[in-house]
C-alpha cells in the first residue's frame, strides 16, 4: 500500500477496496517500525489521524468523497496545527501549541486528508541537510549515513521510505526541491503567492512558499489543488483560484520548447548528475520537445543576493521569539535584557543565530544601501533574466542540485559549502517562479533530480510535463530496498 500513488489510493478508497482507517493504520505502523532509523517525524498524531480517517470513511461510504478524502499525509512542522504542537524544528517552540490552523492545514482538512503527524525539518527552515533540527538529524532512506536534504528533509524522507504517501513542504531557497531530488521523489514549489502563507511560520517572507512532496506529478497535483486556493488572510496571496491541475496534467505535451541554461551547466557538478539530467533532456526531446539554449547571466550573483535578503527578512521575522508571550523562556530572568538574551540564546540554534546576525548587519544603518538594497536590485536582474528567457521557451530544464546526497557531518563545519548546494534552486525563489523537481536517474546508487522551472502561475504546465515524462520513464517508481 505504501508503494501506491495517490490516484491509485483514491480509486481504491472510492471503490471501497480499502478504508481510510486501514490505510492510516498501515502508515502509522510503518512509522513505528521504521522511523527510528530515519527520524522523519517529530510529532505523531495517532488519535487524531484515526478519528479523521473514520470521518473520511463515513463520507466515502455516502459517496461524498473528493480527490483527497481519506488520504493520509505528513505535514511539515512549519505549518501551524490547532491544538497540536508545532515546533518548526526548534527548541524555541518546543512548548508551542497553536490556537489556530494554518490556512494550508485548514484547506487540507476540508479536503478530507488525514494528518499522520508533523515532520522533522531544519530549524526555522534554515538549512539544506536537516542537520539543524533540535529534534536530531534525518537520515536519507537511500543511505542512512547521508543527509536527505533540507529544510523539508523529514517530509522528503517520509515519502521516500513509504512512511507517508504524500507530504507538505516549504521552499525558500530550495527546501522542497533539493530534498526531493536527494531522496528520489517529486516536489513542487508553486509561484510565490499561489499558496497562502497564513500560519506557515515565516523565515523569509518574500521568498517562502508552501508546496508538496510526493511520488509522482499526479500526487503533487492532487495535493496542490486545495492548497492553492485563495486566502484573504494573506495579503500576498493571489486572489484567483487555480485551474484544475488533474485535468491539466492529462493534456498532450504539444509544441513544447524547453530552455537549458548554460550558466547552470558551467558550474562545478558531479558528472553523474550532469549525465542523468542530459539524458532526461534527450528523453523530453524524443517526446517531442524542442531544446534551446538560454542564458541566465545573473545566476552567480543570485546566491549572494539571497544570502543577504533571506537573513535580513529572517532577522526581523524571528524577533518575535523573545520569551515574553509564548515559546522558550529562560529560568528566572533577572531583568529584561537577561530575559531576551538567555531565552533567545538558549532557544535558537547556531545556523539560525548566524542568519539573524548576518541579516541584522545587512539592514543596519550605513550598510542598508550597500547590502540589502543592492541585493534587491540584483534580484530584479535575476527576475529579468527569466522573464526574457520565457519569451523564447516554455519551460527551463536544469539540474536540481550540483551533487547527490552528501554525508552527514560533511558540510556542517562550512556553512558556505552548505549554501552552495542550493545554487540551482535559489534563483527561482528570488524570481518568485514555480519549479518542480522529479527523479531522473541514479548516480552511485543515489537519486538524481531534474528541475523544471516555469513562468508565473504556470504550475499546470510543469505538472503536465512531469506527468508526461513519468508516463514514459520509471525513475519515480524506484524505492529504497531497506524500507520495502
Amino acid at each position, binding site marked *: 500500500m505504501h508503494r501506491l500513488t495517490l490516484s491509485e489510493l483514491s480509486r481504491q478508497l472510492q471503490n471501497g477496496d480499502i478504508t481510510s482507517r486501514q490505510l492510516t493504520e498501515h502508515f502509522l505502523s510503518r512509522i513505528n517500525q521504521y522511523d527510528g532509523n530515519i527520524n522523519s517525524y517529530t510529532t505523531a498524531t495517532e488519535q487524531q489521524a484515526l478519528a479523521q480517517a473514520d470521518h473520511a470513511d463515513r463520507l466515502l461510504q455516502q459517496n461524498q468523497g473528493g480527490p483527497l478524502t481519506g488520504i493520509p499525509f505528513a505535514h511539515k512542522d512549519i505549518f*501551524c496545527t490547532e491544538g497540536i504542537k508545532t515546533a518548526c524544528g526548534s527548541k524555541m517552540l518546543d512548548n*508551542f501549541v*497553536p490556537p*489556530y490552523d494554518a490556512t494550508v492545514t485548514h484547506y487540507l482538512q476540508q479536503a478530507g486528508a488525514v494528518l499522520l503527524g508533523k515532520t522533522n525539518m531544519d530549524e526555522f527552515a534554515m538549512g539544506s541537510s536537516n542537520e539543524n533540527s533540535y529534534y536530531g538529524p534525518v537520515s536519507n532512506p537511500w543511505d542512512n549515513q547521508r543527509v536527505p536534504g533540507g529544510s523539508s528533509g523529514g517530509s522528503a524522507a517520509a515519502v521516500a521510505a513509504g512512511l507517508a504517501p504524500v507530504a507538505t513542504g516549504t521552499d525558500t531557497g530550495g527546501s522542497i526541491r533539493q530534498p526531493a531530488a536527494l531522496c528520489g521523489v517529486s516536489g513542487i514549489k508553486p509561484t510565490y503567492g499561489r499558496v497562502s502563507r497564513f500560519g*506557515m511560520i515565516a523565515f523569509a517572507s518574500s521568498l517562502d512558499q508552501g508546496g508538496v512532496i510526493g511520488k509522482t506529478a499526479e500526487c503533487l497535483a492532487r495535493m496542490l489543488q486545495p492548497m492553492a486556493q485563495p486566502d484573504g488572510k494573506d495579503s*500576498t496571496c493571489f486572489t484567483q483560484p487555480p485551474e484544475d491541475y488533474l485535468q491539466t496534467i492529462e493534456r498532450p505535451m504539444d509544441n513544447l520548447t524547453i530552455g537549458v541554461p548554460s550558466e547552470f551547466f558551467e558550474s562545478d557538478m558531479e558528472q553523474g548528475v550532469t549525465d542523468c539530467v542530459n539524458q532526461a533532456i534527450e528523453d523530453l526531446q524524443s517526446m517531442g520537445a524542442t531544446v534551446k539554449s538560454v542564458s541566465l547571466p545573473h545566476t552567480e550573483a543570485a546566491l549572494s543576493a539571497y544570502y543577504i535578503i533571506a537573513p535580513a527578512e529572517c532577522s*526581523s521575522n524571528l524577533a*518575535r521569539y523573545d520569551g515574553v*508571550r509564548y515559546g522558550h523562556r529562560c529560568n528566572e530572568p533577572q531583568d529584561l535584557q537577561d530575559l531576551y538574551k538567555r531565552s533567545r540564546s538558549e532557544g535558537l540554534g547556531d545556523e539560525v543565530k548566524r542568519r539573524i546576525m548576518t541579516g541584522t548587519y545587512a539592514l543596519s544603518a550605513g550598510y542598508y544601501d550597500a547590502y540589502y538594497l543592492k541585493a534587491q536590485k540584483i534580484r530584479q536582474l535575476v527576475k529579468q533574466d527569466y522573464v526574457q528567457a520565457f519569451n523564447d521557451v516554455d519551460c527551463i530544464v536544469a539540474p536540481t542540485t550540483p551533487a547527490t546526497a552528501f554525508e552527514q557531518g560533511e558540510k556542517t563545519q562550512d556553512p558556505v559549502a552548505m549554501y552552495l548546494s542550493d545554487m540551482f534552486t535559489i534563483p527561482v525563489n528570488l524570481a518568485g517562479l514555480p519549479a518542480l523537481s522529479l527523479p531522473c536517474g541514479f548516480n552511485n546508487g543515489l537519486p538524481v533530480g531534474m528541475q523544471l522551472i516555469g513562468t508565473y502561475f504556470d504550475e499546470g504546465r510543469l505538472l503536465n510535463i512531469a506527468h508526461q515524462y513519468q508516463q514514459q520513464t520509471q525513475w519515480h517508481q524506484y524505492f529504497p530496498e531497506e524500507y520495502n
Partner: protein
Amino acid sequence: MSWQPVIGLEIHVQLATQSKIFSGASTHYGSEPNTQACPIDLGMPGVLPVLNEQVVRMALKFGQSIGAHISPYSTFARKNYFYPDLPKGYQISQYDQPLIEGGSINITTPEGDEKTVGITRAHLEEDAGKSIHDVFPDKTGVDLNRAGTPLLEIVTEPDIASAEEASNFMKTLRALVRYLDISDGNLQEGSLRCDANVSVKPKDSDRFGTRAEIKNVNSFRFVEKAINYEIERQIDVIENGGEVEQETRLYDPDKNETRTMRGKEEAMDYRYFPDPDLLPIKVDQPLLDEIMASLPELPWEKRHRFQSEYALSTYDANLLTQNKPAADYFESVLTMTSAQPKQVANWLNDEMAAALNKDHLTIEQCPISAEHLAGLLERVVDETISGKIAKEVFERMWNGEGDADTVIAQQGLKQISDSGELEGIIDEVIANHPQQVEQYQSGKTKVFGFFVGQVMKATQGKANPQQVNELLEKKLNG
C-alpha cells in the same frame, strides 16, 4: 540677546475604526487587559497582517482636508526594535513612501492673527501595547489591547513660534479630527498624543539651533508648560556658555520640568525595510474625489463663515467652532430666535459653557434643547424679562423646571415695564430717601445707583432697567 523659539510637533492620532489596522480585533478603549488582542496582534508564529480599508479612508479624509499631496502609491515599512509591548519585535509603519505629504493647517496666534502651519508628512502605523509599571511589585505588566490600533502620525514643519501657538495648533487639530469623524481626539485617553521638537535661535539668525524632543505631554496645558520650560532651559544653557544636546526628554508635570530620557548615542537604529507581507497602498483619483466630496465644512471654514456671516469676533467664532456639535447648536438656536448672533454667542460661550463644565457634560448631553434656549433668548429680546432675570430662568430650565415661559409664569418673573406702575414705585423710593435725593442733586451722581438698587429691591429685580433709568433721571433731575 533676543531668542526665537522654533517648534515642530509630532502628533499621533488614533483613528476611530471599529477594528485594528491589521487585524479584526476590537479597538474599544478601557476593556480588561489582554482581552482584545488576537493572534495577529500577539505576533504569534505564522500570522500575517491584512490592511483595514477604513483606516486608509480616514487618513485620506485628513489629507484632503489639509490640502496635502496624497501619494498614489505608498508602502509599509518595518521599524525594528525589542520591547515587551511590541509583540512582533517590529512596528509596521511607513518610512520613505508615506501616504500623505505637504498640506497645511491655519491657526490663530495669541495676538489674534491668522497663521499657516505647514505639514511635512502624515503616515499610517500600528500602535504598540501598554507597559504598566505600577500594578505589580517589581514587575511590569504588559497589556496588548492597544497593540495594532491604527495611528496616523502627523509631523509639522518647524513653523510654530511659541508654546501658546503649539497649544492652539493642538486645539485646532483636535477640532479637525473630530469634525472629520476620524478620531475622538482625547488627549487624556491617549487617542491624541503629542511630542514637541523644541529649539531656540537668535531672533535675527537664519540658522536653527539644536533641537530636543519632549515626550509625554498629554494635555493642552502641559503642552504649553512643557514647551515653555524647555525654551527657558535651552536659553539658560546657551547663555551660560553650554550647548543644547540633541536628545529625547520626558516632561514631568508634577515638577514642571523636562528630563533627559535618551541621549544621541543611545539613538536607536530601526533598520527600516519594506514590509514584505503587505502590498503597497494604491489610491486613485476616483477615490480621492469621493473622499473630497464627503468632507464636512472644516473648522476654519466654519470659523471664517461665522465671522463674516454673523459678524462675530475671532475669539467668539473660535470658541463656537471648536467642536462641531457646539457650532451646530449655535446655528440651530439662531434659526429659532430673533436674538442677534452676538447675543446667542455670548450665552453659549459664557452661561452654557460654565454650566456644561460644572456638570461635566458635553453639548450633546445638554439638558436645554436648542429650541428651548432660543425660547429663552426670545423673551429677553421682547423684553418680557431682563437679561439678569434670564440667568435665573436659565438655571431653573437647566434643573428641569420646564421651558422659559413655564418658568417665568411659575416664578412670576415677568419684567415690570408698565410706566405707571414704575413711576409709583419710584415716587415712593424718592419720598423715602430725602437725604440721598439731596446728595444727588448737590452733585453726587454716584448716588443714582443707590436709587436704581432700591427700585430693583422693591420690585424683586423685575423692573425694566432701561425704563427705571429713564424715569429716575427724569424725576431726580426734576
